[in-house]
């Protein structure tokens, strides 16, 4: 079957798969960003207990594989009475994994803000929370956005693994179609192109826009 005929016949399934992939991506991104901020700040905390917790989290999630984390969350957590539906388990695992990488970016971004900024914020008598939220984080954000762009691409690619626990994302649909038709080149080729288009023409331009937007907001454009 030619590629065109293939697309005519199977585009609805590829499209729903893509929809699920995007949903997984967005939900995982929300979780990942929240965890990044949380763990990144904790790792910088004065409190040794907080620091220890953050380091443990980061090392565990960066030291093991996303596939392992996914299986563990989906197959093992229920044994502790924590049954998570597969759709949720999917974006949860991907988000938690990315969060560990993002935490390092947050930490690095905060550390890159010059010391004078902390001191100036202190000098106008801001509370620690105010200093962080009003002065430090906005500047840290600008400097860490470029690596976040790469991380978001990793996140998008990471969502393909949720197919391993049968979440019906693009990867999963592609495998299903392949199993029933053996049109491997067509279906996997189409899926590759879709992922590429999402990464190159959706995620990357958005992140670039965000970079520019944030830089402008800080008057650095």
């Amino acid at each position: 079957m030619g590629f065109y005929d293939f697309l005519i016949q199977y585009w609805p399934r590829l499209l729903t798969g893509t929809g699920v992939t995007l949903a997984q991506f967005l939900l995982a991104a929300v979780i990942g960003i929240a965890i990044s901020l949380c763990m990144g700040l904790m790792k910088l905390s004065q409190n040794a207990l907080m620091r220890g917790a953050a380091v443990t989290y980061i090392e565990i999630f960066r030291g093991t594989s996303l596939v392992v984390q996914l299986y563990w969350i989906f197959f093992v957590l229920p044994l502790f009475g924590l049954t998570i539906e597969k759709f949720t388990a999917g974006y949860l695992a991907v988000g938690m994994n990315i969060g560990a990488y993002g935490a390092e970016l947050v930490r690095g971004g905060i550390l890159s803000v010059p010391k004078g900024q902390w001191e100036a914020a202190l000098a106008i008598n801001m509370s620690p929370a105010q200093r962080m939220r009003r002065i430090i984080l906005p500047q840290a954000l600008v400097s860490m956005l470029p690596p976040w762009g790469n991380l978001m691409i990793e996140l998008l690619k990471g969502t393909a693994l949720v197919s391993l626990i049968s979440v019906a994302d693009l990867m999963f649909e592609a495998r299903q179609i392949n199993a029933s038709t053996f049109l491997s080149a067509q279906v996997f080729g189409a899926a590759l192109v879709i992922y590429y288009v999402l990464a190159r023409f959706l995620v990357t331009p958005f992140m670039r826009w965000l970079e520019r937007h944030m830089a402008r907001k800080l008057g650095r454009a």
Partner: protein
Amino acid sequence: MFDWKWDFTWEILPRLISATGNTLIAAGAGYVIAVVLGLMLALAQRTPSRAVTFTVREFVEFIRSTPLILQIFFVFYVGPQFGIRLSPWMSGMIAIGLHYACYLSEVYRGGIESVPKGQWEAAIALNMTTVQKYRRVIIPQAIPPALAGMGNYLVGIFKDTPMLSVIGVAELIHTANAIGSENYRFLEPYTMVGIIFLAISLPAAGLIRLFEGYVRRKLGL
């Protein structure tokens, strides 16, 4: 702890350890391919031919923005459609080697670009050929700044080997899946796999940092 069975853990440990061997072989072989192929991809982007540079650049971008697991399926299933049968190991090594070659080519590129312009000029002043310039002057200086990235991707490739399980490579996760479904117990195998990953990747990261320092000293940088 909860329902943890130690005797079962001990029973499955030998199987997991031998699977660890496979995982390490897969990671090692994939890495060797990636290191060599990545260098070729990096150098291909420095040829005077715009067309070659552009094509290679776009190819690298494409591979980097699409999921490895999908590429693994692609290599494994598309071959037979055209009469080329590749074993799971073979397909896996091609896919993972190529994927990481693209990442490493970016690392090399960064390394090469970090070599000051004066070094190129000194090499010309000594009347070196292009090959001599790269081999004697540029690459030795491009390696140290690239080492951190190269090390990260060595650990990265190791953590991505579980994806090979989907085409039947008997690495750690594949073995854990098998143990789990034979015994209807997932807690121990998945947890043990996680621990094995941690036990290898954490020290590896440390060793890589030591090695980096060693190379720097050795080159007198």
